[in-house]
């Protein structure tokens, strides 16, 4: 009886102790999961970013000893028409984003609804993504030459006025570069959208069809609303693809020319840093690019997050 009383008295004291122990264990477990991630992020993202910013404050022309230059590199950068031009080029390339987002979606839906030859196209569309961008660049330098196969084809089918020197004009060169990048990248989009489409119940599609929905109606009213998170994800990928993954294509296709017509900021960072050996100015341009991409991506990710929350 006395023992039972003692046990009863002990119980309320034991529970908080156990809870505290469990909470502590949970805390340690949580830390064990979080700390490696944070450490990696700090080590490989934050530290290089801080080092990059520090470098952007140094004067490092050629092989001379670096010296502190304050914001001089940023002033030089903003005074340089090539820098301004590179961001203008990036903006033009970025304006093609809707095509990057919608084209693979349309193709994915066509494959998803088993259009004739869907198996062939599913494999074919993904093929360009498997070719190294540097090879794609070299390939298209030949294809887009004034006397290359594309113009030969255009002339053969009676479209001679369209057979222009694609890589010579400032606008045509930039658009050609963007189109080649899209050709190289869109297969991944088709695959991404197909994964998303696989999660949509066939009953919904079937019901829409029975209600008389055509292709565009199905795409705009059923598929797109249901695929909003996937579209958001793909949009972020395309944004970074356009702004910071074009380098190998520029390198192999145009080298930023003619003039600076296809020089995007990432290419300018590279030439400034490694060709002209001006690491400080290169870092400053890199920081500007980082801010630009961060703002654009933050906008897209925020939209994605809001859509996800709403759904």
């Amino acid at each position: 009886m006395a023992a039972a009383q003692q046990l009863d008295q002990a119980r309320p004291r034991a529970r908080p102790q156990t809870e505290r122990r469990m909470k502590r264990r949970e805390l340690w477990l949580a830390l064990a999961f979080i700390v490696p991630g944070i450490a990696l992020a700090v080590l490989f993202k934050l530290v290089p970013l801080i080092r990059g910013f520090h470098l952007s404050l140094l004067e490092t022309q050629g092989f001379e000893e670096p010296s502190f230059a304050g914001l001089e590199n940023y002033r030089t950068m903003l005074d340089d028409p090539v820098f301004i031009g590179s961001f203008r080029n990036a903006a033009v390339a970025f304006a093609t984003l809707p095509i990057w987002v919608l084209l693979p979606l349309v193709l994915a839906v066509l494959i998803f609804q088993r259009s004739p030859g869907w198996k062939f196209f599913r494999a074919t569309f993904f093929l360009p993504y498997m070719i190294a961008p540097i090879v794609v660049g070299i390939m298209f330098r030949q294809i887009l030459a004034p006397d290359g196969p594309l113009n030969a084809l255009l002339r053969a089918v009676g479209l001679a006025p369209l057979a222009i020197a694609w890589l010579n004009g400032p606008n045509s060169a930039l658009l050609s570069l963007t189109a080649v990048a899209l050709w190289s990248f869109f297969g991944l989009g088709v695959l991404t959208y197909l994964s998303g489409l696989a999660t949509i119940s066939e009953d919904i599609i079937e019901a829409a069809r029975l209600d008389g929905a055509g292709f565009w109606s199905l795409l705009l009213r059923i598929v797109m609303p249901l695929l909003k998170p996937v579209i958001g994800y793909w949009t972020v990928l395309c944004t970074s693809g356009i702004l910071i993954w074009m380098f190998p294509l520029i390198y192999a296709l145009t080298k930023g020319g003619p003039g600076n017509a296809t020089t995007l900021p990432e290419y300018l960072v590279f030439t400034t840093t490694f060709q002209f050996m001006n690491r400080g100015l290169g870092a400053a341009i890199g920081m500007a690019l980082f801010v630009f991409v961060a703002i654009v991506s933050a906008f897209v990710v925020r939209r994605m997050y809001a859509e996800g929350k709403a759904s």
Partner: protein
Amino acid sequence: MNSSSSRKGGIGRHLAATAFSLLGAAALVAPLAPAAHAADVTTIKVLNWEPGGAEYWKQLVAAFEKANPDVKVELETVPFDRYPEVQGPYIATKSGPDVMENNAGLELYDRRSAYAELPADVLEAGKELITYSGGCLNFDTSKSCYGLPFGYQGNVMYYNKKVLAEAGLDPANPPKTWDEMDAACAKIKAIGKTCLALGLSGIFPAYWDFPEVARNYLTEDDMRAMLTGDMPWTDPKMINILKGLASITQKGWANASAPSITMLPDGADLFQSGNAAFAGTIISDAVNWAAFDKALGAENVGAMRWPTLVADAPLAGSFSGIESSVFGVSSWSDKKDAAFRFVKFMAGPENAELLTKVAGGISLYKNVDPSALPKSPALSQILEIIKKPTLHAGVILSGQEADALARGWQEVTLGQLSIEDWTARMQKALEQSPSKRKK
């Protein structure tokens, strides 16, 4: 009994201990034997753009390793037009190859902190060469030297005799002046061929085209002033050079794709395919007489000086010559002894013979047997042309100037830039050049 058993036990333990010791020793020695051998061999990494071609380099490395069995050479070969972008990160991080290649002149001087100064015994090897000043500061062998050359390099214009004949021109008398060239181009275009194969992307316009027009307006003193940043691009002589370059494309001599292609390989391919009459390239290493002889047939290939713009200019009839690329040892290398031996070998007689026989190059080594040279009409013409050398104006352009020159020429060709604006850009590039800017 006890003692006996203990002795047996002792013998057994002794035997066991001996056996284990032997096994242990064997286990230790077995991997150590080849390791000890491997430790005697020093592997050096050589960054290069394979001047002279793959076969020449294969034989060069084999010959060096045979002469130096304790050194193994590992090549990192990068295409010429992408070389600065690969070398840049190595220099920026002070790590990577033990031996590096660079063009002689300003390109090397700009990077001199990445090179170890040549020691006296290596410099001795340089004295066996016709010249090695392009590896030394300001082309002066009394100053610090950072690399040794191995071949002679410079610009000539090649022509396809078959195309000239097809166009009704005399292959034995190719154009000598700008006006004659203009007239020849009109005839060549009339038969549907390109007159001058040209690529304006990358560093080729600076190295292969600029010096040939510059010789019409500059003296050697002017070129030295360029080297030290004392010749502004606003000087009328410099503006005339830009005008001369612009006239090549504005007169329609070149292929329409010129603004968006590189001379190597695209422009050279155009000439090698037989679709162009002329191509301005180099005498050694790549896209030279040997390559064109092979592609077009030696009987169809000719070599000449670029046509002159100003016939009585002091250097108009000269050859823009320079030691070809130089090889030096990286300042961060911890295998300097082996690396310097490679540099010395590059400049030596054995490599001179290989360069001539295998790569069809023109060696700088003084005592090469002329009978070792292959029979080629174009080579014979080149050997005459190089007898009157002058400084090479291309290798004294900074990276910034070379880049601005190519991009500006592209835009001028496409009618997007005036000569005045091109001049202003060149001047800005000069002011941003680390070795030339005035503080």
